């Protein structure tokens, strides 16, 4: 019997603290099972520069907070079969969106102009620092999302439940105790 093609898995890190990725690594020995079934084709913990084509499943951590995130999100959607909002920031905006009650320019001025350090050029895209969006939004407000894994971070059991369902080609169904935000 010919060996079944491995699933092409990607994880993406947008506006978040990488806690979801840490929790992902906490899958521990289950990572070995995962590696047998899937190839990690793009991830902050893998060395790939560009988001590859024909990805089967992409887990997206973090909210959409700047122009780069927006662009990457669109690329992810175009090149993945299934996109999963991975963790509270991607699902709700969470901590990343706490800045939404403030004006972006005020925020930048306070942090960079009034505080110590070099002076950047505000929120205008200057090609070096990606411009901030006026408001941080959850992933599904920018691209269609297929499944949601809440949690800050989602604990490894939650991640495993979701990922193993995806590997088996089934829809993600989290039990009630795995659906809590926070």
């Amino acid at each position, binding site marked *: 019997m010919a060996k079944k093609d491995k699933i092409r898995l990607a994880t993406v890190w947008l506006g978040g603290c990488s806690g979801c990725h840490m929790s992902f690594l906490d899958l521990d020995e289950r990572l070995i099972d995962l590696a047998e079934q899937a190839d990690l084709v793009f991830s902050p913990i893998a060395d790939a520069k560009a988001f590859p084509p024909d990805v089967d499943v992409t887990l997206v951590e973090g909210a959409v907070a700047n122009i780069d995130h927006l662009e990457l999100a669109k690329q992810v959607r175009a090149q993945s079969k299934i996109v999963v909002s991975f963790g509270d920031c991607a699902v709700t905006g969470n901590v990343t969106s706490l800045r*939404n009650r403030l004006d972006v320019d005020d925020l930048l001025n306070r942090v960079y102009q009034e505080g110590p350090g070099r002076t950047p050029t505000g929120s205008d895209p200057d090609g070096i620092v990606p411009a901030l969006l006026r408001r941080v939004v959850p992933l599904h407000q920018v691209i269609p999302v297929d499944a949601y894994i809440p949690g800050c971070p989602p604990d490894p059991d939650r991640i495993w439940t979701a990922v193993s369902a995806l590997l088996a080609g089934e829809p993600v169904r989290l039990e009630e105790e795995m*659906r*809590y935000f926070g």
Partner: protein
Amino acid sequence: MSVVTLTINDELASANSGQSLLEVIREHGIYIPTLCHMDGLSERGGCRMCLVEVQGMRTLQAACVTEVAEGMVVTTHSERLRKYRRMTLELIFAERNHVCAVCVMNGHCELQAVAAIEGMDHVRFDYLHPDLSMDISHPRFGLDHNRCILCTRCVRVCDEVEGAHTKDVMGRGINCRIVNDLNQAWGSSQSCTSCGKCVQVCPTGALFHKGVSVAEMVKRHDFLSWITLGREKNEWNYTGQPPYYATERRKE
């Protein structure tokens, strides 16, 4: 008191006339979510979580404010009702800044639990992110408007049980807010007796004890029914029962 017979989810049920539909539904072991209802307080009918279908009624009825009647045919968990409950929760989550991860009530919050139970896994509406303040002028308690869902349990407990009526709702529509006295700092309120009942009945992290950090605020959900019914039931020692949403084995 006469007995009435009604049908709930295709099963016959009996109840005393004058009972609320919510009470009867819960007596029969059927889980139905609520946010503004609290045993021991007057009903408000504002959160719309306990809406049920009653045959022959044009509109959906809030079970908490509907009296049982002979021959009533009630459905508590149709697809339509589930969907509306999820949408209501989405609206609540979008209204203010409910960031569970950094909330004092994380893990003990009624809103968070109800959302998980009802399967509200993401919010399709715009998060409004209003710029709301926090009042920590009271020596023992804090009020965080960001977490408030305007269930008015605090207003009712302050008026109906404590009798101080320190709290009320100001403004209207999306600008409604809980106020102390003349919209003044809680600490400067002369009517507040610092009894802390409002803190115990608040379903979310809007009212909390000062000094607690993320996930540390645990409320005594059955506190109110204990103090209001204690004399009747001769229960003088508070034992502490787990909150309703965590105890009921859910039959839908």
